[in-house]
């Protein structure tokens, strides 16, 4: 037994050295790209929109890199590995959402905006109130998302580097490594954005997309090969190993749970599933870090091609996670996974290790594949946080500083300098918040970011583009109304207090029964936009004509 233990230790240290080496290679390569990109970044358009020089394919890959977060890769694979079918159900909302972006938003936004979401919202409105609201919402959504990603990175590092309780690495125990990781991730995202701007960030996201797709594809092929490319026998093995039998392949183990003898809770659980689903589908097209990606291509048609590529790559990726999740359930087993991480976040790396042992010559092979996938996971987090930092600093500089404080009287150079400073400030604030939140369960923040985007941003965008009567009051009501409804409801929901899995386990001020506010807050946001509009007499036919003609034809587009 000592031998097994030693072998595991040796495997750990090989994997650890390799993970760190690969991660350093990724960081060195992306920093080199960032420095190169900074030389190409001269104007505000370069900084905010990568000079609008990317092709539809490149931008489609970058969108994939921006969108597929650790929650997608590690989170969904883990959810499937532990709860089976419901993890798959979760992934589908993230894909279908792209149809909203494709049909209703991407091209029209590309034609009528310049750098930020607010460019479209404020097009025919009074600039200051609308841009202030848009900046508040952009920064809120981005910071929620950032904290979730950074805390996730911190939680993963000890597991991915195999730092066990009682052991140290470079003199750090697991807690110190966690803090170091949050600070390192924060520092890197600040460098990518301040130095490389949108060009640097885009290339980081493209590289990440290829690494992630390559890693996931390789593991998928290995999993399927293990089961002779027979999906049914993979599912059978997964359900057998799960100990839950056929229920593992059916909806209901995680979402919309039926609680025996408690009809009310069962009802709430099922409504909650629907509430989550609509927030995912409607939230994507309101996420500021996704929206600004459409400005990096020269035309609306290239924006369309970007979304088509994005749908292709994201859809393929979620099909891979299906194999990864069920593969991890079958080959690693739920017990071994939840022993490492209760949420299943290490299912994909553990599967990599098992596959490596199987296919590439024992423990060393296992260590190598584990290291590769762990490094891919870090790359994934870095690309997403860079996109979020860029979106929020762009909005702070372009919307709030240049158009609200300076009322549009500022030079390009000044504005870009402010954007760089903003990236630094937002990065620093996120690091601090993530350090405070690191021991709390903040996984719900990703779903909350989607809910805010769907409740506040999406109504404002859709009304702006399609409703002639819409005005300043309508836009601010929609954004603030949807934002507040989502945040307040979540604050009083079970994810924040009142249950053993809440963010604050020992407190209880919960009265809202659902974890996901979308089913209330999304209609509320749309309703606020309508009421606000009707209460104000303001209309600008001339400007609406300009917006409509520009958005549909591309005439006069930036």
């Amino acid at each position: 037994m000592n031998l097994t233990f030693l072998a595991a230790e040796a495997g750990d240290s090989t994997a650890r050295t390799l993970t760190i080496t690969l991660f350093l290679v990724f960081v060195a390569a992306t920093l080199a790209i960032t420095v190169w990109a900074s030389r190409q970044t001269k104007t505000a358009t370069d900084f905010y929109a990568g000079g609008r020089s990317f092709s539809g394919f490149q931008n489609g890959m970058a969108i994939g890199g921006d969108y597929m977060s650790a929650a997608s890769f590690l989170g969904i694979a883990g959810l499937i590995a532990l709860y089976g079918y419901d993890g798959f159900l979760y992934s589908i909302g993230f894909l279908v959402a792209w149809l909203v972006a494709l049909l209703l938003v991407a091209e029209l936004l590309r034609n009528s905006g310049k750098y930020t979401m607010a460019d479209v919202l404020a097009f025919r409105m009074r600039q200051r109130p609308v841009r202030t609201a848009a900046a508040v919402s952009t920064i809120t959504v981005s910071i929620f998302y950032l904290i979730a990603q950074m805390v996730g990175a911190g939680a993963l590092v000890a597991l991915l580097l195999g730092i066990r309780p009682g052991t140290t690495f470079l003199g750090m125990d697991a807690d110190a490594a966690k803090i170091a990781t949050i600070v390192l991730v924060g520092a890197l995202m600040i460098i990518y954005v301040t130095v490389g701007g949108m060009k640097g960030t885009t290339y980081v996201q493209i590289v990440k997309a290829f690494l992630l797709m390559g890693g996931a594809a390789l593991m998928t092929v290995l999993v399927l090969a293990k089961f002779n490319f027979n999906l049914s026998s993979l599912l059978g093995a997964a359900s057998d190993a799960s100990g839950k039998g056929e229920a593992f392949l059916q909806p209901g183990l995680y979402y919309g749970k039926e609680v025996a003898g408690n009809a009310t809770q069962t009802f709430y659980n099922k409504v909650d599933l629907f509430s989550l689903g609509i927030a995912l589908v409607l939230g994507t097209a309101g996420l500021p870090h996704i929206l600004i990606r459409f400005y990096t291509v020269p035309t609306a048609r290239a924006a369309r091609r970007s979304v088509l590529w994005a749908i292709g790559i994201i859809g393929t990726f979620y099909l891979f996670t299906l194999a990864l999740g069920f593969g991890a359930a079958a080959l690693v087993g739920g017990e071994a996974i939840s022993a490492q991480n209760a949420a299943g976040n290490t299912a994909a790396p553990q599967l990599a290790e098992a596959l490596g042992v199987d296919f590439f010559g024992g423990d060393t092979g296992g260590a190598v594949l584990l290291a590769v996938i762990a490094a891919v996971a870090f790359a994934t987090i870095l690309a997403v946080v860079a996109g979020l930092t860029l979106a929020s600093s762009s909005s702070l500089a372009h919307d709030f500083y240049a158009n609200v404080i300076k009322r549009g009287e500022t030079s390009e150079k000044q504005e870009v300098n402010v954007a760089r400073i903003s990236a630094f400030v937002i990065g620093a604030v996120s690091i601090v918040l993530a350090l405070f939140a690191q021991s709390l369960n903040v996984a719900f923040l990703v779903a909350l970011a989607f809910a805010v985007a769907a409740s506040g941003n999406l109504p404002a965008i859709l009304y702006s583009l399609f409703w002639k009567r819409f005005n300043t009051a309508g836009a601010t009501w929609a954004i603030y109304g949807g934002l507040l409804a989502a945040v307040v409801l979540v604050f009083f929901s079970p994810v924040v207090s009142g249950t053993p899995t809440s963010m604050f386990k020992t407190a209880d001020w919960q009265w809202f029964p659902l974890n996901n506010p979308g089913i209330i807050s999304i209609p509320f946001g749309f309703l606020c936009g309508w009421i606000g509009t009707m209460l104000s007499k303001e209309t600008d036919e001339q400007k609406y004509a300009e917006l409509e003609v520009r958005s549909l034809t591309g005439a006069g587009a930036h």
Partner: protein
Amino acid sequence: MTTDTPAPATSVPEERYLAVQQSEDFAKLRKTLRGFIFPMTVAFFLWYALYVILSAYARGFMDTKVVGHINVALVFGLLQFVSTFLIAWLYSRFAARQVDPLADKIAAELTEKGEAA
């Protein structure tokens, strides 16, 4: 004008937009585009909602085995992928054939007149 170079931002005088917006060509462009994107949005949203609602409330049906360990729930989920890919492809074909030529024509007229003025 080629389809991939946007018109420079300054070439259209503002008052031209109102006239174009009220033109027949533009009404046709708006109607064509909305005639596709609005019904399609409603359709895919209802299709997705149906999937989620069945997953929550029609578990007996979703649990039905189709072949081997593959059940209705899995097939339904995979069909959401198929429908998403299909709608994306249909839209790109529709936009290229029906929308782009109209949009280009209007944009070209606008910028030409803009430059002449």
